[in-house]
């Protein structure tokens, strides 16, 4: 299994006769784009002093917010992925009446301003059904569980969409052949379908997690901004900005961005090592 990646081994990098500009223009645009993003983030340092970083790192409220951000985003991305795999499979493979409508409904949270999702959640939990759910012992409104719920609602549609696209690209004949080779349907799912959509799983997980890390609109509406309880880093940035402490806000942002970037880099490296690419 420790194979050289296929694309490196057998796809020639530069076919003959291609015009140089076809390679150079996209590359140039990519460099410009990445450079602009780096500049954008770098320019934040103009307004941040080392003291700001020290304040942020020493503040117990912000340390709590960082910890809450990390575990809530990880949990909601995991839940979104666990939902997206079967739901994406169903959307990709099953044909049933009303499929088009359901497919669009699943996409709806993407097009709604996500602040509205917070409002919807708040309203829902005031209905008798919502109150009943709260009565079961798990509190969502103005509670950490509400953060996870709101993040989950906002990021799951992206994960579902990516998983559907991933399953669309898998030839069902792979699964059919595996069945004739002696594997049962659940075994085929684990041994053929899931490895086939590995790229989709990674992409869904990364997108869901990254989106959840930066979400704050619906969280403020639905879960509130109680210090040390329901405050996430993105909320802290908003709160610091609203009282004019730009330095602190930017320091939080930079810490968050660096952490997220390191996590994504590690994750991608880990995912690339696990199995040969194809």
């Amino acid at each position: 299994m420790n194979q050289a990646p296929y694309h490196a081994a057998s796809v020639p990098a530069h076919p003959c006769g291609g015009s140089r500009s076809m390679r150079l223009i996209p590359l140039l645009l990519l460099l410009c784009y990445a450079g602009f993003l780096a500049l954008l983030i770098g320019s934040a340092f103009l307004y941040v002093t080392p003291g700001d970083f020290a304040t942020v790192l020493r503040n117990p409220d912000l340390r709590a917010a960082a910890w809450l951000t990390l575990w809530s985003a990880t949990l909601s991305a995991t839940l979104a992925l666990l939902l997206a795999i079967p739901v994406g499979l169903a959307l990709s493979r099953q044909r049933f009446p009303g499929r088009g409508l359901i497919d669009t409904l699943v996409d709806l949270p993407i097009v709604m301003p996500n602040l509205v999702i917070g409002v919807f959640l708040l309203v829902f939990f005031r209905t008798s059904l919502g109150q009943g759910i709260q009565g079961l012992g798990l509190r969502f409104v103005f509670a950490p569980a509400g953060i996870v719920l709101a993040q989950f609602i906002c990021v799951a549609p992206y994960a579902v969409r990516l998983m559907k696209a991933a399953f669309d690209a898998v030839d069902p004949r792979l699964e059919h052949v595996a069945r004739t080779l002696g594997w049962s349907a659940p075994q085929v799912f684990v041994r053929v379908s899931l490895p086939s959509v590995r790229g989709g799983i990674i992409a869904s997980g990364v997108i869901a997690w990254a989106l959840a890390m930066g979400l704050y609109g619906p969280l403020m509406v639905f879960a509130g901004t109680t210090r040390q309880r329901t405050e996430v880093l993105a909320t802290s940035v908003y709160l610091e900005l609203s009282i004019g402490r730009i330095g602190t806000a930017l320091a939080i942002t930079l810490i968050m961005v660096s952490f997220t970037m390191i996590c994504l880099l590690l994750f991608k490296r880990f995912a690339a090592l696990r199995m040969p690419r194809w």
Partner: protein
Amino acid sequence: MVSPQPPRLLIEDLGLSLPGFSITGVSLSLAAGRCLVLLGPTGCGKTLVADMICGLRRPQAGRISIAGREVTTLDPADRAIGYVPQDHALLPFKTVAGNIGFGLQARRLPAHKIAQRVNDMMTRLGIAHLARRLPAGLSGGERQRVALARALVTQPQLLILDEPLSALDEDSGEDLIALLATLRRELGTTVLHICHRLDEAFALADELAIMRQGRLEQIASPEQIRAWPASAFIARFLRLRNLLPGTVVETAQGKVFRIGDRDWLPCDLPCGPAQAVLPWSELRLDPDNGQETDDRLGIPMRIISNRPQDREPCLQLDGICVPGIFLGEAWQAGRIITCSLPRHGICLLPSENDREAS
């Protein structure tokens, strides 16, 4: 007394109805060690039949038995079949050896046994050097061999090949035909081979089943089908060149098959256009032997061309071409020659209006 061995594959009255297409009354039987080629134009339902035999689609009517065991509703995993689909369907994330051993893994064999059987099969198919490669880097012919090895290594009761040559160029196609023949000889595998190409079908078939619009038109040996096609569709689909058009007319002696103004044979086809399939191997052209007798029909025909320099010498008679015959310099174009054919060897077919196979 020992009861005779059940057929390796027995299909009885298989039926499936889909929106816009249906398969009806497909029945066939295949003895162990034989190769049946299911031949038909694209879209005639061949792959659906294969899917039902594999258990990937449940038939709405009929029964399927493999090696005497009814499998109609069994899981594909329990049918003891090997299946090579059209596009090979190799697992892209497994190496060649991993792909081939995948079916053995399902049978929970110990790793060293799997490795041994995979190696044996790779050596047999000449792909041992590819063992650690991934499918994406392989050529069409190599993938085909891997898919074949993966299906054969589980020692299936029945090997189902769905258009295995369709993705290959001509040379690799010929290599694979030779390889399939060798494998069948060595392993005694029973094969159901699906294809739409005539050369492939005739090169491999012990028996030929011709399908059209969801029905089986004829099952017989290739020689039999060539000599006695069951319908004008089959004659046209097989591009038989030994066809002579004529008409069936009612006379005082009953119905006869007539070409031009000459009555050929009595027959019981409906009146109207019809055609005769002429058994060339039985044709005699010698002017002295070409006479009409009780069991041979004499047919005078004009020589259109008779050229020895053609790559495949060909005698052209009115409207038809007789392959592989050169008469000698004396027989110039324009002369009339009488040839004779056995009366019982001439197959008459009613003409059809549809042009599906043309």
